[in-house]
C-alpha cells in the first residue's frame, strides 16, 4: 500500500492507504480527527470541509494522492496551541449558532476560508461563501450573524 506524508495542523503525518482513499477517510479513520464530518460523500453539503492552504475545501471526494504537501487545517487545528479559540469559533459560541451542530465544522471552515480571502465581507458575500454548506436544523441566521461578528472582530 502506498505511503503518504501529509501536513496536517502543522504536523507531518504518515499514512499507508490506497491511492483513491478520499482525504475525509484519512483524516477520520486513520488520524482519528473528528472535526470533518461525513454528510454526503458527494461534495453537496460541506460537512467534510477542511482548509487546504487556507481555502475551504470539501474532502469527501478528494483522493489522498492529490494532496501532496498542501497545508491541511482541520477544525481541531483552528484552536491555537494555547487553547485560544479562533474568532469564528468564538463567535459561534457567542451566538449559540447551532442546534445539533453536525454542520458546524463545515460552516466554521467555510467562514474561516472566506475571512482569509476577504476580512470584511458583507452579508451577501457571507451567504455566497456558505452556499454549499447545508444545515437541516435551520441554524442559518445565527450562523451568518456569527460570521459577521467574527469579521468585525478582525477590524
Amino acid at each position, binding site marked *: 500500500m502506498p505511503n503518504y506524508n501529509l501536513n496536517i495542523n502543522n504536523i507531518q503525518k504518515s499514512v499507508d492507504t490506497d491511492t483513491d482513499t478520499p482525504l475525509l477517510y484519512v483524516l477520520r*479513520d486513520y488520524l482519528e480527527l473528528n472535526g470533518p464530518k461525513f454528510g454526503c460523500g458527494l461534495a*453537496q453539503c460541506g460537512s467534510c470541509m477542511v482548509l487546504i492552504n487556507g481555502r475551504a475545501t470539501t474532502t469527501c471526494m478528494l483522493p489522498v494522492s492529490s494532496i501532496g504537501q498542501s497545508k491541511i487545517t482541520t477544525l481541531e487545528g483552528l484552536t491555537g496551541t494555547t487553547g485560544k479559540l479562533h474568532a469564528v469559533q468564538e463567535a459561534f*459560541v457567542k451566538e449559540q449558532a447551532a442546534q445539533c451542530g453536525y454542520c458546524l465544522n463545515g460552516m466554521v471552515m467555510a467562514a474561516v476560508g472566506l475571512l482569509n480571502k476577504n476580512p470584511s465581507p458583507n452579508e451577501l458575500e457571507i451567504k455566497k461563501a456558505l452556499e454549499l454548506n447545508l444545515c*437541516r436544523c*435551520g441554524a442559518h*441566521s445565527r450562523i451568518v450573524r456569527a460570521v459577521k461578528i467574527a469579521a468585525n472582530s478582525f477590524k
Partner: protein
Amino acid sequence: MTNFPSESRRRFFKDLGYVSIGFTLFSSCLGEEDQIMAERVPYNDTLPGSMRRENHVNAWLQVLEDGNIRVLSGKVELGQGIRIAIRQVAAEELDMDLDKVEIHLAETGVTPNEGYTGASASIQNSAMSVRYAAATARMELLELASKKLDIKVDELLLYNGRVKVRGSNKYLTFPEILEGVQLEREITTPIQLKKKTEYRYVGKAIPRPDIEKMVQAEATYIQDLRFPDMVHARVVRPTGYESKLVQINASGLKAEVSGVLKIVVLGSFVGVIAQREYQAIKAEKHLKKHTQWTTVAPFPETENLFTRIKKIANKPETIRNEGDFETETIHTQIIKSTYTKPYLMHGSMGPACAIAMFNGEVLQVWSHSQGIYPLRDALASMLEMDLDKIHIISVPGAGCYGHSTADDAATDAALLAIEYPKRHVRVQWSRHDEQSWDPYGPAMIIDLAASLDRNGRINSWKSEVWTDSHSTRPNSDAGTILAARYLEKPFQMKSRGFLAGGHRNADPYYRIPHLMLKAHYYDGPLRVSSLRSLGSFANIFAVESFMDELAEKAGKDPLEFRLEHLDDDRGIAVIKKVMELTASLKSKDGEGIGFAFMRYKNTDAYAAVAAHVSVDKENGKVRVLKLWAAVDVGEVINLDGIINQTEGGMIQAASWTLKEQVTFNPHEVTSTDWITYPILRHSEIPEVEVAIIDRPNEPVSGAGEVPMPPTSAAIANAVYRACGTRVYDLPIRIHKK
C-alpha cells in the same frame, strides 16, 4: 470501555464506580453567612407520564461521591438542548450551582425508560420528572440531616451541596448525610417546589455548554465513536422494498478491494465487514454490482399519487362530530377546498450510524435512536435474546426531526456484530440509503368544507383527511426495524394501520357550532413514520389557508376573522403579538404578508407566524423574505433554547413548503441526494424573528414541533397576497401563463 450495569444499580455509590466515604460529623465553614433561601410552595397536581414506571428519587438523580449531582434522563439529545434544560431544573430545586449538576442521557439499565424522545414531550416528561425528583431529594436530604444532627428541619438550610445549621458554622455535605446510600424516597405529592418568582436558572437563556465543545471538535457524535480494533461495515440494501436476494457473486471482491474481513448473508440481508471504512464503502459498491434481486411489482400510478390515495384508502373514521354539519349545510352555500402535501423526508445532515459488539453473551449497541428501550424490545424479538442481554447506550447523532433511520442502522450493526463477535462493528449509512430508505412523512390530502352565517362567521365546518401512518417506530414487533424484514425468516410489520397523529390539528381550534372531522387511512407505496409535527403540518397548512379563504368570502381581515372565532386569551395573545411585530411593515409591489395560527394538538403550545414573501412576476419564483413567530409554550425553561428551536423550525418548514417533495418512479425512490432532493440553502434563507410569551404559572409544553405547521400556511397566505394565486398543493409552484 463501558461496564454492563447491574440491575441493582442505583442503590449505592459504589455501583457507579465510586467508593463510599467515611462519616465525618460537622464540617465547618467559618464566617459564612446564612444564605437567604427561596420560598417553597406545595405542589399537588398530577405527575408526568414518565414517572409511572420510575417514581423513586434515585431513578432520576444520584449524589456522586464528590457531592455533585448526576441527573438521569431517558430522553436523548437531538440538538434541541435537552441536556442544559434538565440541568437547569435540577440545579434550581436543589439550590446548587449549575456546574455541579451533570446529566446522563438514555442508557438501558441505567436511566429511566421514557419510551421515545419525540412529540415535543421531553420537557413535559423528563424535565418535570427531574424537577419533582430534585425537590423530593431536597426534602429527603433535609430530613436525613435533621435526624443525624438531631436538629429540626426548620433550623437547617440546604444549598450548594450542603445542609447547614442556621446561624452556625456547621454543615454536612450530601455524601456525609448519605454515607454511601442513594436517595430512595418515592416521589409523591405534595412536593415542596421552589417558588417560580425566585428562580435563578429556569426561564433564563443559559448558553449550551455543548456548543463550545462542538466548535472545537470535542463533542462526540455517534459517528465519532472509536474503539480499539473496531471494524467497518456496510449493508448492501435490496433494489426495492420487496426485493429478495437471488444471488450474490463475491468471488472477485477480495481481488478488487483490500481489507475485506467478512461477507454476511442472512436471507436477503447482505453486509460486508472490512478493516477500514473506505474499504467497506468500496466493497459495498462492488457487491452492489454483483448481486441480483427479484424485481417486484412497480409502484402503481405514481404520477397520480393523490387520485390513487383516494382510491386505495379505507372508509373514514369519524373522529369528531359536534352539532350537525350535515343538516346545517343542506340549504346554505358551502365553500370547499382541497389541499395536498407530498412525502417529505427527514434529511438529517449526518446519515445513520451505529456500533455494536457481541462478546458471545451480551450485545452492546451504541445508537442515536430516539427510543433505546423500544429499540431493545425490537432487537430482542428479532434476535430471540433476553432483554437483559442487550445493552443500548444513546449517543447524539445529527438532528433527526422524528423517527428516522437510526434504529435501522442499530439493527444492521447488531446483526453484523453477532456474525463477527468480539469486535466493535461500526455501520455507517450512505447518503443514498439515508434518503431512499427513510421512513418519510406521509403524503396527505385534506378536503375542507364550511359555511358562513349571516354575520360572516363560520357556522359549520368539515375536515376530511387522508393519511398513511405517522408512527412505525420500533417496538416488540421486530417488523418495525428494517433489516428484520429481509432475514431468512422475515418479520413483517403487523401494526401499520394507525391513524393517530394523522388528523392532529385537522379540527380547527376556533369556535364553530357544527364541526365534523373524518379521517381515512391508506397504505401507501413508500415507507413512512413520524416526521416533526406529524399530520399537523399538512392539516394546519390546509386549515389556516382555508381560514384566509373564508375571511375573504366574509369580507373580513384575516386576523380579525381569526380573533372573532377565538375564546382563548393565550391564543389571542400570540396573534396580537405577531400583529404588533409586523405592524410597521409595508409590502412593495409583488410582495405580500400572510399569517397563520395554531394551538399544537389543540391542547399544547400556541403559535402565530407571519411571513413576508415576494413572488417574481416573470418566473413565479417565491422568496420568503422574513418570518416572525410569537410562541407561548407555557413555562419557559431555557429561553434561548426555545428561540433557537423556533427559528430553526420556521426555516425548516419554509424549506418543506417551498422546495421539498420525495420523488419516485415505478421502481425506486429518485430523491437520493441533495441535488434530487433540494433543501433551502443560505442564499434562500429568510430572516427570522421570534417573540416568546413566558407563562411561568402554566404547565410547560414542548417547542420543537410548534413552529412547523403555521409557517407553511403563513407563507401560502402571503403568496396569495403577493400574486393572487391560492396555494393548494405543496411544495408551492406558481405557474406563470
